[in-house]
């Protein structure tokens, strides 16, 4: 990402210094007879603010406290100490690990061990938020299943051997496409050229395959990206770079349910979880061409009833500042009223070509993309 390591040693020192600072604060509090605590910006929807400079959502000024007064807080502080030590040792030994490896390493931390990988991931993010560094600076890398790209895009990737390999994402790949690596920064992936008019970011594998089979990338002159559900940081970062550097527009094509709306939000507005780095990950100009409540009515799509969890998620979105515009308010309310959701593959009701011949042209046309 933009804070890419230039001089390895210098940045590592920065990371070590930051981690030392955290441990020192805790130490001083204990030594002074105080209850140790850490202040962290609240990572909740109540604490995201629109950053007009980058047109994305970032954390606001609300702070939460992680204190040893509570069992959970005390445990997290202890884990933080373990993680600090672990990272410090990795930097010293020029090693790195995946987040999953760190989760397993914690098995040896006795009561401080993580009970789910989600816990260790969140703590790694906490450290990013506090130090304003990135997990890569801490020698932690994700274990993200790489999303796929198909379309006339040429890029250069540095291989394991350090060679540059030029890849065309249409001609040099199989049906599964080009797999996005976890590091998509310039030093790893160089964007060369593309004649695509837009990027279609697709939620499900079934729909991605359908569009590939129908040759939609060539017919519509676009790049197809399979998001694989909630997209990973590297997928979002690549979309952002394609948009910024090659000036290609992005459109997200998802199912019609509350979780899919959140996928679009994290692509276009910034995810709550990673709001501290939204300016690197979000593509504010991305358009939504996924299934809406209006589509369910207009296209008479086959549906499923909303589950209680779906309804809860929709209601939560009503108070999510990222969805606070007329389009989303109307669609979310309409979906709650309908009490129905639909998958993008429901369009197959009208035949396998309907999505490429009718639905997408009808959606993308008004946006000037087709």
């Amino acid at each position: 990402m933009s804070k890419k390591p230039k001089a390895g040693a210098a940045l590592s020192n920065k990371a070590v210094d930051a981690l030392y600072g955290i441990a020192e604060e805790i130490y001083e509090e204990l030594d002074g007879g105080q209850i140790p605590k850490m202040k962290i910006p609240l990572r909740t929807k109540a604490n995201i603010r629109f950053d007009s400079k980058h047109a994305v959502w970032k954390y606001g000024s609300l702070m939460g406290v992680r204190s040893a007064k509570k069992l959970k807080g005390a445990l997290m502080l202890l884990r933080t100490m373990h993680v600090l030590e672990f990272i410090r040792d990795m930097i010293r030994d020029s090693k790195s690990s995946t987040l999953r490896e760190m989760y397993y390493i914690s098995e040896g931390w006795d009561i401080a061990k993580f009970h789910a990988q989600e816990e260790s991931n969140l703590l790694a993010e906490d450290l990013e938020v506090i130090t304003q560094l990135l997990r890569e600076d801490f020698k932690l890398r994700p274990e993200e299943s790489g999303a796929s790209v198909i379309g006339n895009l040429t890029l250069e990737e540095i291989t394991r051997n350090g060679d540059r390999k030029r890849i065309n994402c249409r001609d040099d790949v199989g049906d599964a496409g080009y797999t996005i690596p976890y590091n998509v920064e310039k030093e790893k992936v160089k964007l060369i050229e593309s004649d695509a008019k837009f990027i279609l970011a697709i939620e499900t594998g079934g729909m991605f395959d359908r569009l590939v089979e129908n040759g939609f990338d060539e017919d519509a002159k676009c790049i197809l990206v399979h998001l694989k559900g909630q997209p990973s940081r590297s997928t979002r970062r690549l979309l952002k770079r394609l948009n910024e550097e090659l000036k290609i527009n992005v459109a997200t094509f998802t199912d019609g349910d509350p979780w899919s709306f959140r996928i679009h939000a994290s692509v276009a507005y910034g995810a709550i979880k990673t709001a501290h780095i939204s300016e690197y990950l979000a593509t504010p100009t991305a358009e939504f061409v996924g299934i809406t409540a209006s589509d369910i009515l207009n296209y008479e799509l086959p549906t499923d009833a909303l589950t209680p969890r779906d309804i809860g998620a929709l209601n939560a979105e009503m108070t999510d500042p990222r969805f606070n515009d007329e389009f989303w308010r109307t669609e979310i309310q309409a979906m709650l009223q309908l009490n129905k959701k639909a998958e993008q593959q429901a369009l197959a009701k009208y035949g396998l070509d309907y999505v490429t011949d009718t639905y997408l042209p009808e959606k993308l046309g008004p946006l000037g993309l087709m």
Partner: protein
Amino acid sequence: MPAISIAEELAKKQREISVSEFFERNKQILGYDSATKALLTAVKEGVDNSLDAAADADILPDIFVEVRKVEKDEFLVVVEDNGPGIVKKEVANVFGRLLYGSRFFSRAQRRGQQGLGISGAVMYGQITTGKPTKIRSKVAEQDVAYEIELILDTKKNRPNVVEEDFVVWERAHGTRVEIPLKGRYIAGKQSVPEYLKATAIVNPHARITYRPPEGDDITFERATEDLPPKTKEIPPHPHGIELGTLMAMMKETKSYKLAAFLEEEFVRVSSRVAKEICETAGLDPDTKPKSIVLEQAKALHDAMQSAKLMSPPTDCLSPIGERLIKRGLKNVLGSLRPEFYAPPLTRDPAVYSGNPFQVEIGIVYGGDLPPDQPVEVLRFANRVPLLYQAGGCALTQSVGNVDWRRYGLEQRGGQGLPFGPAIILVHVCSTKVPYTSEAKEAVATADEIMTELGLALKEGGRRLKTHLTKKEHRAKTKEKFEIVQLILPRIAEKSAKIVNKKIPTLDATITKIMGVVWIDEQIAYDKKLKRHSVTINIHNFTSAGKKLNLHLLLPRGMEAKSMDPKPAEARDDGKITWELKRIDSVTKASISFVLDGLDEAEYDESDVYVSGINPGLVIGAEPLPGDWELNYAEFEGEEGAVPEAAEEEGEIDYDETEESLEDE
């Protein structure tokens, strides 16, 4: 007494009408109104007989019950005991004659009261299957057992012996009865195993083995080797005796003088009291009882009611007792792993209508008991489980009359059966339990009994509440305990290592997080020595030194030995007091002692109280009752407990706000 007249009535009728008609008309009273109930009633009559016989002969009962399937709806009910046996000439009468026996005028507490019991079962079996009942009995004096098959001659109320023989039996003494009958076998609430389980709870001195129609034997082992104390017959008590009964007694009496009649035929009436009663009634103590007319009898009756008298003697009653209720419950319900057995409660005997009675309750809480169901009420009368007519029974109603919300159970509107993971045992014993009907399925709501039940249940509720409060306090503090004992030292160690400084002292931080005196205990049990070793730790997690008095209340009959340190006072009633010297901030003091000769289950939690310290600072022990009024000036200047919501102004707990992160 109505029980007698109805029973006699039944017997008379029984001579005049056919047996099948007799059963048809009276099957409800006899407990044979449905096929399921008939099977249970037969088992019940057999087991009641066995328990009574063993009690008569001072034998620890060992009872075997089998329900064997013969045909689709025909079963063989077998009940075998190690009782004294029945002499040969009585066997046929006991099993083959209705209303045989002489318990009607007894004022000792018995299970059976009508004499219809086992012969009723024999008769039911005979009507439904046409087959005779087989009885085998052996008395200790005989080398062989007497075995007989008999049929009731219902015209003459006489047994007809079908076959008889002497057989070799390995038992030293005992009785075995095999009754063939039509019935239906069920599992669940009103089933044979449930009945036997309940019976085992209130008869911890009995060993009961059950062989069901299918599946393995179930054995309820005995929980004590001690026989329940013997009961004896007593004359009626003057309080509440019915006028009619009083007049009948005066007609029958052999006394020539009224005062003598009162003194001799009633319990707790001295010659002085007898004279006082006569005086109050305006009658000459020398009046001949037979000459008393209705008006005078009424005055006498009133005078008897208002006389100040001692309660009737209690040795005619056979309560189970607090220790044995707990043992019985633990023995049978142990597999449910309840977290708490409220100390059971046996009330002092009281009197209704001249009959002494006593109520007992026990409460079992938590463990695997279902938390969202109405509590289970185990009802007993004279140690006999009551399985039917729960709604109309005084024992159920008395539970519903208590406002359990005050004692930590859920209850809609503060009445009716409470909800929660609890079992409530209610036992009434009396020389004459007032049943709602001849079927003896439910206890009537006599005022005196309801009052006693209410008092007992409320006290049990208070004991439950004390436990729940303690548990709640402990849970809250336990978390903090874990923080300061386990987590904080490691945070200190790790942070010191990272910043490369020496590990800081944590005392000040610890007292800021805890701010309490925490009392806990460890109990170890040595099976070989039958010894409980108890250690009570007093941790001072406040910022200043503390001294306090610790009081231990031992249950009756237990004695603490090897006490370290020596207590300041050890009283005969089980209260032991230690005056603890100053315990410095972030240090602990310990008290240890041993208890010898108890079963492991008999001691699982110490009853500890504190005094001489602000009780708000103490977790794990209640303030000594009566200590609340203590001079609070004594504690002035002492810090109070750390307020629960020690959150600083506007501080948000970061770790309680992760809601939206997981969904993305």
